[in-house]
């Protein structure tokens, strides 16, 4: 049996009004990949933050290779040998990719930073992860997925005994995940201990040796992955049994047929912008769920942004319910009944210092304008309703949204858009970082809303999610729309082949 690398005993962490962790024990062995599982708000990220000195301990002890340690800060933890990728990518958006990877430990030549070396090594490092990008560009030019890869590359390059990854794969697609896994398997062979948080059950079984499950801040148990069936894993996480998501497919196909005759809600013709996306046509019918699928950087988000008026187009036209319109800003788009739930919840979604209530009503208030202030009582009603509907875990509606767990922040943004009662809802990775139970709930909700007549444009890196929910799929590759799939063609193999272009 391999020796233990990291032990945490009786970890407690309290926030005002929240017991985030109570007496949690955790053990990580050398040369193992260990998954930390639990619902949104179970305390996974908090445990990681406590282990790496972001938050101070309220109780318990940590041992690294049998030595008692007290990490004071992430830098300190790094010096001790714990390298971490946190849930929210916390790199500097305006620094270059290479700078982000080497910040704080730049290679020097005669006392001066050796830029050539930095850029060379950064490129090499990213190529190892199968990512061929210009490392001298500022990080903000790239999508969340690439930012996530850069954060991982940075953590991998720091030689460490323990590697902690908090939901590293939440916006990666299958291929990148596979790459990441092959890299961490190699590290595991070298005796590194790897702690890995994810909500993807399949990934857990693909890489992990053992699983630790948390629920409501307490330890449920530690299990060998091979000995724990999926159903049980989920049951242990949720604390109840869970009926598989199955109602979806049937209702979906029915809708597709009914809607064939229904009128078109959104019609896009020849919309495009040089450098961003080639001119494309797109129609979305009332009550239809249209999926945009493609690889990373294929232009899914750009397509959505352009429709929502975030980016300028230099050709083409948009018609909504037959009327030709110019959508110049999100405010414009919202007036026409559009809504856009963006993929990067930290920079484009939450207003972190405002309360859950204020975050939830924000888009509706913007739609109503500044004069028609929603009465406080009504705001509270709305907030309460959606906190219950999406089971948002928070100590109250006045809690600052930044104090919510990642998945719960995502739900807040979803709530923000649902209350505007849009006619077309654009969802860019809506279930990013959301646990299995809630994910099914949200998918059901989307299907139900579509049934009631709302149109949806659905973007997801999880192919099976798109396949399960969508009536039609538009396939993109290299910023060009290359195909549309419907009916029978919406099937994993066909979709994969179309995306890959073979």
């Amino acid at each position, binding site marked *: 049996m391999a020796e233990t690398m990291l032990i945490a005993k009786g970890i407690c962490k309290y926030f005002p009004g929240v017991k985030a962790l109570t007496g949690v024990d955790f053990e990580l062995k050398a040369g193992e990949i260990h998954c930390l599982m639990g619902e949104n708000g179970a305390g996974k990220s908090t445990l990681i933050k406590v282990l790496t000195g972001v938050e101070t301990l309220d109780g318990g002890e940590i041992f690294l290779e049998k030595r008692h340690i007290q990490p004071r800060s992430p830098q300190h933890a790094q010096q001790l040998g714990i390298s971490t990728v946190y849930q929210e990518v916390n790199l500097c958006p305006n620094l270059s990719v290479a700078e982000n990877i080497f910040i704080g430990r730049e290679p020097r030549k005669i006392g001066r930073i050796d830029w050539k070396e930095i850029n060379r090594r950064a490129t090499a490092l990213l190529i190892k992860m199968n990512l061929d990008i210009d490392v001298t560009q500022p990080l903000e030019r790239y999508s969340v997925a690439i930012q996530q890869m850069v954060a991982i590359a940075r953590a991998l390059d720091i030689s460490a005994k323990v590697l902690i990854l908090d939901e590293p794969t939440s916006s990666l697609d299958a291929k990148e995940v596979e790459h990441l896994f092959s890299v961490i398997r190699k590290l595991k062979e070298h005796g590194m201990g790897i702690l890995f948080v994810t909500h993807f059950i399949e990934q857990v079984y693909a890489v992990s040796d053992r699983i630790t499950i948390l629920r409501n801040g307490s330890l449920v148990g530690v299990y060998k992955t091979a000995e724990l069936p999926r159903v049980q894993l989920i049951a242990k996480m949720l604390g109840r049994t869970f009926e598989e998501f199955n109602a979806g497919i049937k209702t979906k196909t029915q809708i597709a047929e009914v809607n064939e005759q229904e009128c078109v809600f959104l019609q896009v013709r020849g919309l495009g912008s040089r450098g961003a996306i080639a001119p494309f046509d797109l129609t979305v019918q009332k009550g239809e769920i249209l999926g945009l699928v493609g690889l990373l950087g294929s232009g899914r988000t750009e397509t959505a942004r352009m429709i929502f008026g975030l980016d300028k187009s230099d050709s083409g036209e948009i018609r909504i319910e037959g009327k030709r319109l110019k959508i110049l800003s*999100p405010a414009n788009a919202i007036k026409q009944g559009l809504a856009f739930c963006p993929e990067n919840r930290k920079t484009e979604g939450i207003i972190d210092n405002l309360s859950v209530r204020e975050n939830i009503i*924000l888009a509706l208030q*913007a739609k109503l304008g500044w004069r028609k202030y929603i009465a406080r009582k009504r705001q509270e009603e709305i907030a309460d309703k959606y906190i219950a509907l999406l089971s948002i875990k928070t100590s109250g509606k006045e809690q600052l949204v930044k104090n919510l767990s990642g998945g719960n922040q995502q739900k807040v943004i979803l709530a923000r858009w649902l209350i505007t009662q849009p006619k077309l809802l654009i969802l860019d990775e809506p279930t990013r970082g959301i646990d299995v139970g809630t994910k099914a709930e949200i998918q059901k909700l989307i299907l139900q809303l579509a049934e009631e007549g709302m149109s949806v444009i659905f973007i997801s890196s999880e192919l099976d999610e798109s396949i399960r929910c969508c009536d039609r799929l538009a396939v993109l590759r290299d910023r060009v729309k290359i195909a549309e799939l419907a009916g029978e063609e919406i099937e994993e193999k066909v979709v994969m082949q179309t995306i890959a272009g073979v």
Partner: protein
Amino acid sequence: MEIWIKLWRIVTNSRLFWPLAALAVVLLFNFFYTKDFFVVEIKDGHFYGVLIDIVNRAAPLMLLAIGMTLVVATKGIDISVGSVIAISGAVAASLIGGNLEYVDGTQKLVTLVPMPVAIVAALAVTTLLGMWNGLLVARVGIQPIVATLILLVAGRGIAQLITQGQIITIYYTPFKFIGAGYLAGVPFTLFIVLLVFAVILYLLNKTALGLFIEAIGINSVASRFSGIHVSKYIFLAYAFSGFCAGVAGLIICSNVSSADGNNAGLFMELDAILAVALGGNSLDGGKFSLLGSVIGALVIQSITTSIYATGVPPEITLVVKAIVVICICLMQSTSFRTIIFARWGQKRGSVSESTTVKL
């Protein structure tokens, strides 16, 4: 004991605690060292006293601080307000004119244009200048400090141009009422401040303006995604700041009965920013407290007045002021308090340490 600690925590966590504490400290100092500081007398039906004087003199600064608070809340800054004050005075003075006519030994009141027109013109010009700042920041996308620097530099030149390089002295006495008049025994300036404060407070709390401005200051990208017209509200904040500077300029000009393009409002932008900071507002934007900024302005004016009252030699008044301000800022800084209290707690045993650190 527990309950007192809890109560203390609630009190110290409230946004206005530290600004008020700073004000209290300054006033307490004066209670001991300045003669007759708290005495308020009634002469000719007017209230007189050092306190009244402070409030009266702080009026322009309070107005600037109100405008500045909104700009700062959007993550911006407006360093042009001092120059805008000069322009405001210059416009008003040159429209009223510096004519002094005597008819039969008594002064005849003459103006070039009616006084209300002059006032409206001054406010319109300054609001337009605020809009210019807003345009540069919100539409053109220039960084706030650079965008408003333009007007800071050019503004005094413009003021000189308007007054044709001269200090215009106003002899038209009704104009004096704005900055030096009394209404119901209280300085008229106070009513002006109160009116502006009340109107803006109403707008911020009874409409969604407050929410939008905070949201923009915290995360402008996410605000735009949510459908808020980000540039419109940033523009409005600068326009309003210009307007406030205009009103402040009128008060100052009226108070000294002259428009001095070189010296009116000199360095007042710095005091205004300081007032916002002393009011417990983060200069990084987001959540803000108007009342805090107003208190901050009062603190600054109290310091200035008490420095003069205690007879500090004029050549070192600025140094003394700086030291006081540093102390207040340290007192308000959470991390500084944590360090100090942690030290203090250690000497007294670890029990109190664990409680004080979390203050």
